[in-house]
């Protein structure tokens, strides 16, 4: 099947006005503007197949949102080629706009002073959704998200979690085939995060939708994505499966120790990299080739009550990749 998203050598450069602080800086800014060229995305290439859910990861300022905006048609690329469902996104043709959506966790399309249903009604009209179909979709989504009771309340009275669920409902009402989700769980509590994740997973499965998702919460990525794309300072670091990512960037295991008595990190340092000590519990990262010997030495020399060896948490792996800026 044809790829849904094609990005080749995608780049975006902005001109950003710079201003020095203080009165003199303001005067200079008024008389003569100074601009700085920011290369937000530099030659990024990837493809998404139909029905894929892909995690798009990177630290703040990595170029994730700029890339998503180029894919959704809000920005045109400075260089490179981009196609979504066969369309050039920045042309914003109705056939394209009717089949995609972009959800931004830090921005809202809901009408603030009105009930959620009013925004949904506007969207139904904009996307030409017939009345019976509109009702059916609202019923279905509201049940999936468990927000039937809040649809008639003003948006400003809703909790952050309820708002994001309603936002998703408004963004998916037209049944898009491609979802660009930018931090959809930002600031939500654990339960709301889980509800949003479940909804996205179920929608993608039932509709066969393709999803490109950015999130700072690794739980989102672990729960939804089998493939991840890592981007750092505008460049692609890694594109592949989650397991491949761990194998490539985490050639170590995590050893969890439950001790008879608390120990100083310095006492644990000879066995591996100490990543956390809390009371009588400690966590160490140990390189895989040294693992057996290190475990044997720990059991012999330390007051160990229990010991477990696990794959390191994804957060740890990705944090390490970004800190080291390792290129794939």
């Amino acid at each position, binding site marked *: 099947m044809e790829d849904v998203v094609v990005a080749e050598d995608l780049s975006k450069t*902005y*001109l950003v006005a710079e201003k020095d602080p203080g009165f003199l800086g303001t005067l200079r800014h008024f008389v003569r503007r100074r601009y700085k060229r920011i290369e937000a995305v530099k030659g990024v290439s990837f493809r998404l197949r139909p029905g894929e859910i892909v995690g798009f990861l990177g630290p703040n300022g990595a170029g994730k949102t*700029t890339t998503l*905006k180029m894919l*959704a*048609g*809000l*920005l*045109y690329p400075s260089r490179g080629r981009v196609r979504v469902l066969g369309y050039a996104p*920045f042309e*914003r043709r*109705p056939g394209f*706009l*009717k089949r*995609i*959506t*972009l959800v*931004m966790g830090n*921005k809202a*399309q809901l*009408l603030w*002073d*009105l009930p959620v249903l*009013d*925004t949904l*009604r*506007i*969207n*139904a*009209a*904009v*996307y030409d959704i017939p009345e019976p179909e509109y009702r059916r979709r609202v019923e279905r989504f509201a049940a999936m998200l468990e927000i039937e009771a809040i649809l008639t309340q003003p948006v400003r009275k809703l909790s952050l979690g309820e708002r994001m669920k309603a936002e998703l409902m408004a963004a998916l009402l037209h049944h898009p085939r491609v979802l660009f989700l930018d931090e959809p769980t930002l600031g939500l509590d654990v339960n709301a995060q889980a509800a949003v994740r479940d909804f996205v997973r179920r929608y993608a499965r039932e509709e066969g939708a393709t999803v490109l998702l950015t999130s700072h919460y690794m739980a989102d990525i672990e729960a939804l994505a089998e493939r991840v794309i890592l981007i750092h300072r505008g460049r692609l670091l890694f594109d592949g499966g989650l397991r491949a990512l761990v194998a490539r960037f985490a050639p170590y295991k995590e050893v969890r120790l439950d001790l008879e008595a608390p120990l100083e990190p310095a006492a644990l340092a000879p066995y591996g990299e100490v990543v956390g000590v809390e009371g009588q519990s400690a966590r160490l990262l140990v390189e895989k080739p040294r693992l057996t010997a290190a475990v044997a030495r720990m059991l012999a020399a330390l007051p160990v009550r229990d010991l477990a060896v696990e794959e390191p948490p994804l957060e740890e792996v990705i944090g390490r990749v970004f800190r080291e800026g390792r290129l794939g």
Partner: protein
Amino acid sequence: MVRKLLAFLSVYYAHMTVYRGEILFWLLSGLAPFFFMAIWVAAAREGLTDRDPLSFARYFFFVFAARQLQVVWVTWTLSEEIKNGALAFKLLKPLDPLWHYLAQHLAERGVRLPMILVLVGVFWLLYPGALVWTGPGALFLGLLASLLGFLLNFFVAYVLGLLALWLEESTDLYNAWYVLFMLFSGYLAPLDLYPEAVRAFLFWTPFPYLAYLPAALWAGEPVAGAGRAFGVLAGWTLLAWLLARGLWRAGLRRFSAMGA
């Protein structure tokens, strides 16, 4: 399109009723014509003009009414949505955002209209004899002039709002437009009191059609060259619309280049 428009009007009407207190204050802030009315009525009583006091009362009341039908704020909305990036949500949808803004204004008129009718009643009690029935033709032509005046005002405000894509702040430009409107539209004084040469020039500008033309038509005053007046008004409205379309296309290219 009809279904879209009905949905928009019903939702945005609900939205505007949330701000009914604000609309009442807006309405009160538009009472300036009554202030000018008081001045000109007093001047007429002193015999300083050829017009009689009642004709001034009638004229300025209709200036107020025409102005109420033409209030626009799209410059502020656009400027704000461009700056905070909210325009992006409208650009992601397969419908020109202009329809949203237009529907918001039309829905607001639905909330404002009953309040205007109350003011009509109050005025009728305060100035008996000032409101006279000048016939369905005058009523229709006055409404047509007001509608075209609203569209002209709306597209000018839209153009000025779009300039926020190039300038950091564009709302002050609307204030400049408003000053020209105040001076040259017949808002401060009926245009027949202006020198002949000035009046002849002004009738080629868009301003007289925003206040003087509808007010004079409703008041049953003779409007010389009404046909030409409508032609000039329609021409300016068309020009403002074309400018709004052109600037929108150029603005989108800029928005797409710079981002929200």
